[in-house]
């Protein structure tokens, strides 16, 4: 990988009691890339996201975003820097409608203050119109327009996954972290979603780090993949290299996904 590095993890370790959930991880992600992060259950993939978004602070190591350190920052401050995420175990604002879910994430770009909001100043009205318009666009792109006024809790499962993505985009990130966005979807839905993700990446000039449990899904759209196993990065490379890597095959042994390896996704 050459050129402009957007996110750099430098020997990052996090320890929970006796367990090193992520051990000495070094990973670079270039601007505009779509990188896959895969690994068996409990490999530490979600923990990497929790580190990058500030939910946990690394025990050891440095994390740089656009060349500036982000370790030790609070999650909302990291989001403001330009990193947003989706959650593996969907965490929508259940009682709010889809539109509000998206608007909430546009929050950090609001220019109107509290007094503007309470006194309904011109600045507030303009701001609000912008936020609503942008939310409408994002819902449209994710195919959620028909559900705009539906509380998130009442959405069908597949749409909830999409709303997670719409919401993360509303924060206008430069780096988008997607944690198993296709989990629970059938193969057609999941292929469709992957195409949508590639679309979004180009349209918004995004860099994406994509966690996926099922290798087949990422092989199609990621040009570079990193593999975690027991918190350790055991391989990194093109889908072709990953597919034939003996350590990767071994890590996935005993998993159903194993069958997909030979089939080549």
């Amino acid at each position, binding site marked *: 990988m050459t050129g402009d590095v957007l996110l750099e993890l430098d020997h990052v370790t996090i320890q929970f009691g006796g367990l090193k959930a992520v051990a000495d991880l070094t990973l670079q992600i270039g601007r505009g890339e779509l990188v896959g992060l895969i690994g068996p259950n409990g490999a530490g993939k979600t923990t990497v996201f929790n580190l990058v978004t500030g939910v946990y602070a690394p025990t050891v190591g440095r994390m740089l975003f656009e060349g500036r350190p982000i370790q030790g920052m609070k999650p909302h401050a990291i989001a403001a820097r330009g990193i947003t995420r989706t959650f593996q175990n969907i965490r929508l*604002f259940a*009682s709010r409608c889809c539109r509000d879910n998206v*608007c909430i*994430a546009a*929050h950090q770009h609001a220019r*109107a203050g*509290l007094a503007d909001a309470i006194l*309904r100043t011109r600045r507030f009205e303009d701001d609000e119109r912008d936020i609503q318009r942008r939310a409408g666009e994002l819902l449209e792109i994710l195919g959620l327009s028909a559900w705009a*006024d539906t509380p998130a809790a009442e959405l069908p499962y597949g749409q909830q996954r999409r709303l997670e993505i719409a919401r993360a985009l*509303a924060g206008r990130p430069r780096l988008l972290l997607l944690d198993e966005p296709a989990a629970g979807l059938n193969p057609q839905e999941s292929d469709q979603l992957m195409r949508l993700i590639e679309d979004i990446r180009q349209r918004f000039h995004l860099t994406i780090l994509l966690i996926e449990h099922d290798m087949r899904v990422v092989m199609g759209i990621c040009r570079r993949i990193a593999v975690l196993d027991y918190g350790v990065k055991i391989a990194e490379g093109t889908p072709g290299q990953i597919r034939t890597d003996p350590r990767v095959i071994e890590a996935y042994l005993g998993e159903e996904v194993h069958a997909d390896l030979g089939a080549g996704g």
Partner: protein
Amino acid sequence: MRRALWLAGVLVALVALNVALPRLLNPYLFQIVVLCGINVILAVSLNLVNGFTGQFSIGHAGFMALGAYGSAMFSLHVGQGWVAALEAGHVPGVVAEGFALLLALLVGGLLSALAGYLVGLPSLRLRGDYLAIVTLGFGEIIRVIITNVDAVGASRGLPGIPGWVNFFWVGLGVAAVIFLSLNLARSTHGRALFAIRDDEVAAEALGVDTTSYKVLAFVLGAFFAGVAGGLFAHYLSYLNPNSFTFLKSIEVIAMVVLGGLGSVSGAVLAAIVLTLLPEVLRPVKDYRMVLYSFMLIVLMITRPQGLLGNRELSLTWLTRRRRRAGAPSA
């Protein structure tokens, strides 16, 4: 322009009611109306914390007490003198008293807000339950201090507070807290509060500074509890620490829960219902509180989401509901 008209309309209505109500109602009924207003302010302000933001504060009576005693002390030692001086300078009595009352309410509100900030900042950084414990302790500490400090009358109570509050001022307080709540709810800041209630982790990950917003809601809630306390003090002209026990906090929580956590109109409605209920039940004497509790239980069993659930009472709500019935479902 439209906003100016609204404001003028509200003021005219309040002045008219201020003239009409004392003539239409006997003093007993009038007092109930005023207490309804004060309880509405308490419920709507606690709704900012427990309803909008999903935190659990159980010390609202403490903030009310601070506002009540703070504003009363200000009026007794400062305000009254100013009113006398202004009247000597031929300023009309209503104006002088209104000015002094406004200042006293501001003093009471700000004192409560400051206390809310000091109590809220450390406990709101932590997860949910800490706030409940800390506010519980805070409410009791305030009451115990008041009961023991002679300067504020200790357990004998504080008499002689100027009775400057009439219907106009209570109505203005009610209008202010409702106006603030509704506009806050329909703004990016209100959405941030609701997001915290629904999922704090997700809110934080999407750029909401959850600690600051929790503190903000808490401080605003404390401010209006203080204002309610100030109105209470300057209406009754007498304060007693027993008005601010833990039971008062519970009563306000009951209003917020009964109204539907997060619903401003629900809090208003429930505050009125729960103020009237004990009065309506007066004829049954000894069984009054039994019946009161029983009716609360029945209400909560039949409508666990509260009277209005999450919603606001409005025409758009009805139309939106109809529209939603036609939305796609899967």
